[in-house]
């Protein structure tokens, strides 16, 4: 009945004839403009090539349909059942991996204002990453230990326009809550403040005194502010989702927020709220819908990776997908999101067990904020950080380190290590759009683990280390057959790799003692990659006396731009600025000591950014601006400690 009537009524809906005729004329014009004489020929060639590729791919791949044939009851009831079956798994998670940053491609900084200014060091151009400091070319938004500052700049002069508490605590009779600002984004006319919110109870325990117990689940909050008037910013939206803040990205005006939500306590079949994450958008609460919950057959922890998309221009919730399982690193480009979940697996052969951590990859397409689950796959090993992954021409490349441990369980129940006990090696996988593995390299650098990786179109660079650092360059132009082109062995290792111009690869890491393998001073390397089969270390610089830099594990701490020829980062309490010269190698432009000779153990994070020819260096105690011609100090602004009266 319905279908007949629907068809009847819908048939009458048709486009205006005159509009269709006008459209045809316009289309013919466009076609005429775009056509070149060889169009027909190219088309024939293209289709022939397409056929060949299709045949080639079919021969080498096995099609694996992801999930769609499973007769799974995709309702709250079905999800409850699944969780019930798995609740004895507990809530363990695997240690997070180091956050090594890889810069995005050096397409230059976004110079939308009159002056050229620096952006956060991004992995993928067009995909913004949150950080503790942002600039829009005139104003600086900075998170110190205690405050979020909005600062107006004028050729180095700084004026604080507004200041907000970074952390707030509130207590009532029943409940206490702590809210802490993690990171910010500044995009167009919006300031997005990402916060973690936790509940806690105070317990007075006799002799011990006051203890704080965190309970339940935290939530992740995004506050969206209109910053048209910097001195009086207005809140346009608040989004909250269950789970601890894990990651975020912004593409255009769409904010993608990722959190990990653990299920605690008793779950009640009649109350989905006890086992399904919720989203609160501008005060309205909604539970994640069953069709938005992604189920993976390898579920091994009672938790969700909650992924939401929000429109920050008009404060609207766009979509959510919540993936059952625990999420770790993510890779996002402008089209797709890949979430890595670490799972622990044990293979058994007789009474010999091999245990290792493997990675589940779940691919989502973004569709400008309408997130959809696409495919999933499993690979051996774990990733180091987001730079271990890359998507190019539809293919997903991922480098993992496998630490496997073999043991035998004896008759009396005790276990003994078998053979060499533990094994370490590294794999590179190439997966197609459906996440079917089409090519791989296995057992790279046995006994070593990946210290850094970077992808550059058809080439992949991997650094592994135990004592000597092989820098592998890998040809990825044929996804079915990745080939190691070269292996450069040099002492030390790089924690971070960055493509610098066309034929250079920059590495920041540590030197190493060739005898003991112990890591030494900070080392900068510039590799010549013009001949990928023979990559050489063109120049290197060891920074005497400096061991520690946040840049070795956080890519956002590096300011690097090929066009401006600047490579800057903090080391101990000093902010170092270098340029690179083809003849001389690394040239130190400045070593900026913001403490004036002192040393502060609680220094915290440092960042540098430039607007025009002024470099602003931010630390938790002070922000200083320098003239980039001579690095003379222009202005020094105190960053305040917490107000003792509060």
């Amino acid at each position, binding site marked *: 009945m319905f279908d007949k009537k629907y068809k009847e009524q819908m048939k009458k809906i048709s*486009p205006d004839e005159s509009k269709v005729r006008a459209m045809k004329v316009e289309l013919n014009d466009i*076609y005429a403009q775009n056509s070149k004489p060889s169009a027909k020929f190219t088309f024939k060639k293209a289709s022939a090539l397409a056929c060949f590729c299709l045949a080639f791919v079919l021969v080498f791949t096995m099609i694996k349909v992801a999930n*769609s044939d499973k007769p799974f009851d995709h309702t709250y009831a079905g999800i409850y059942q699944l969780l019930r079956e798995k609740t004895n798994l507990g809530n363990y998670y695997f240690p997070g991996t180091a956050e090594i940053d890889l810069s995005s491609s050096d397409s230059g900084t976004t110079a939308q204002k009159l002056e050229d200014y620096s952006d956060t060091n991004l992995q993928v151009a067009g995909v913004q990453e949150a950080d503790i400091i942002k600039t829009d070319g005139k104003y600086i938004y900075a998170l110190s230990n205690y405050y979020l500052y909005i600062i107006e700049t004028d050729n180095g002069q700084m004026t604080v326009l507004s200041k907000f508490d970074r952390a707030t605590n509130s207590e009532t009779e029943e409940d206490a809550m702590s809210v802490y600002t993690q990171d910010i984004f500044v995009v167009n006319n919006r300031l997005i403040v990402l916060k973690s919110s936790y509940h806690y109870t105070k317990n007075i325990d006799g002799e011990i005194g006051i203890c704080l117990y965190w309970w339940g689940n935290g939530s992740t909050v995004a506050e969206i502010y209109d910053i048209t008037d910097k001195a009086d910013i207005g809140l346009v939206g608040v989004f909250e989702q269950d789970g601890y803040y894990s990651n975020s990205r912004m593409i255009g005006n769409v904010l993608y927020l990722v959190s990990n939500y653990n299920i605690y306590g008793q779950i009640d079949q009649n109350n989905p709220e006890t086992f399904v994450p919720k989203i609160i958008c501008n005060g309205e609460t909604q539970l994640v819908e069953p069709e938005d919950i992604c189920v993976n057959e390898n579920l091994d922890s009672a938790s969700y990776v909650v992924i939401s998309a929000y429109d920050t221009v008009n404060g609207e919730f766009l979509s959510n997908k919540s993936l059952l399982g625990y999420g770790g690193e993510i890779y996002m480009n402008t089209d797709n999101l890949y979430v890595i979940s670490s799972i622990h697996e044990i293979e058994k052969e007789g009474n010999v067990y091999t245990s290792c951590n493997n990675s589940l990859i779940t691919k989502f397409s973004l569709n*400008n904020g309408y997130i*959809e*689950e696409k495919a999933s796959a499993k690979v051996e090993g774990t990733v180091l950080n987001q730079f271990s992954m890359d998507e190019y021409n539809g293919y997903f490349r991922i480098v993992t380190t496998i630490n496997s441990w073999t043991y035998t369980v004896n008759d009396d129940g005790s276990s003994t290590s078998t053979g060499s006990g533990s094994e370490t090696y590294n794999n590179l996988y190439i997966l197609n759009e459906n996440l079917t593995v089409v090519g791989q390299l296995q057992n790279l650098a046995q006994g070593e683990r990946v210290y850094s990786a970077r992808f550059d179109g058809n080439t992949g660079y991997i650094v592994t280390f135990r004592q000597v650092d092989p820098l592998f360059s890998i040809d990825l132009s044929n996804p079915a057959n990745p080939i190691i082109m070269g292996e450069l062995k040099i002492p030390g290792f790089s924690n971070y790799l960055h493509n610098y111009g066309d034929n250079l690869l920059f590495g920041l890491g540590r030197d190493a003692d060739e005898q003991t393998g112990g890591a030494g001073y900070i080392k900068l390397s510039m590799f010549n990659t013009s001949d990928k089969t023979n990559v050489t270390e063109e120049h290197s610089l060891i920074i005497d006396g400096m061991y520690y830099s946040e840049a070795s594990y956080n890519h956002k701490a590096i300011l690097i731009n090929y066009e401006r020829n600047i490579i800057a980062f903090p080391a101990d309490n000093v902010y170092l600025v270098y340029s690179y010269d083809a003849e001389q190698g690394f040239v130190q432009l400045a070593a900026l000591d913001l403490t004036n000779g002192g040393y502060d153990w609680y220094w915290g994070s440092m960042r540098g950014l430039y607007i025009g020819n002024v470099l602003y260096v931010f630390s938790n105690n002070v922000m200083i601006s320098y003239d980039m011609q001579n690095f003379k100090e222009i202005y020094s602004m105190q960053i305040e400690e917490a107000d003792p009266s509060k």
Partner: protein
Amino acid sequence: MNETNLFDYNSIDDAVKEYSGTVYRLAYIYTGNVADAEDIMQEVFVRFVKRKPLFDSNVHQKAWFLRATINCCKTLLMSKWKKSTMLVDSFDEEGQVEQVADNYILDAVAKLNENQRLVVHMFYYEDMSIKSIAKTLGMLESTVKSHLNRAKQNLKNILEEDDNV
């Protein structure tokens, strides 16, 4: 490759004749108004002419047009910040709709959410299978079934309320 795979002016005319209705109707049920549906139809065919996609079957070609229409709809929706509740009003205001008599079924469908409207249209008008709807929309089949079931439930409620069963 045979002649039918060559892209030329005939291909444009054939495609417009064959698919302008399909594209327009899908855009109309999605956006709820004539102006947007016309814009989207335009955009979809411009993409068709610019990208000159190759098809190995009519089914493949239709799927391309449906997919392109949905993508354009979503982009338009993002840029115009429309909310689904506005759709009901659009249906009432558009002159075109007023001319068509007895629109209560379309009005009911208009009250569903985006995904449900899409699935209802593809299932009941375009006669597509759950599998092909899932492929076109990039969803799991179970998700499509879920949307369809909820849509049927909602429609039942809406139509019973309006005493128009």
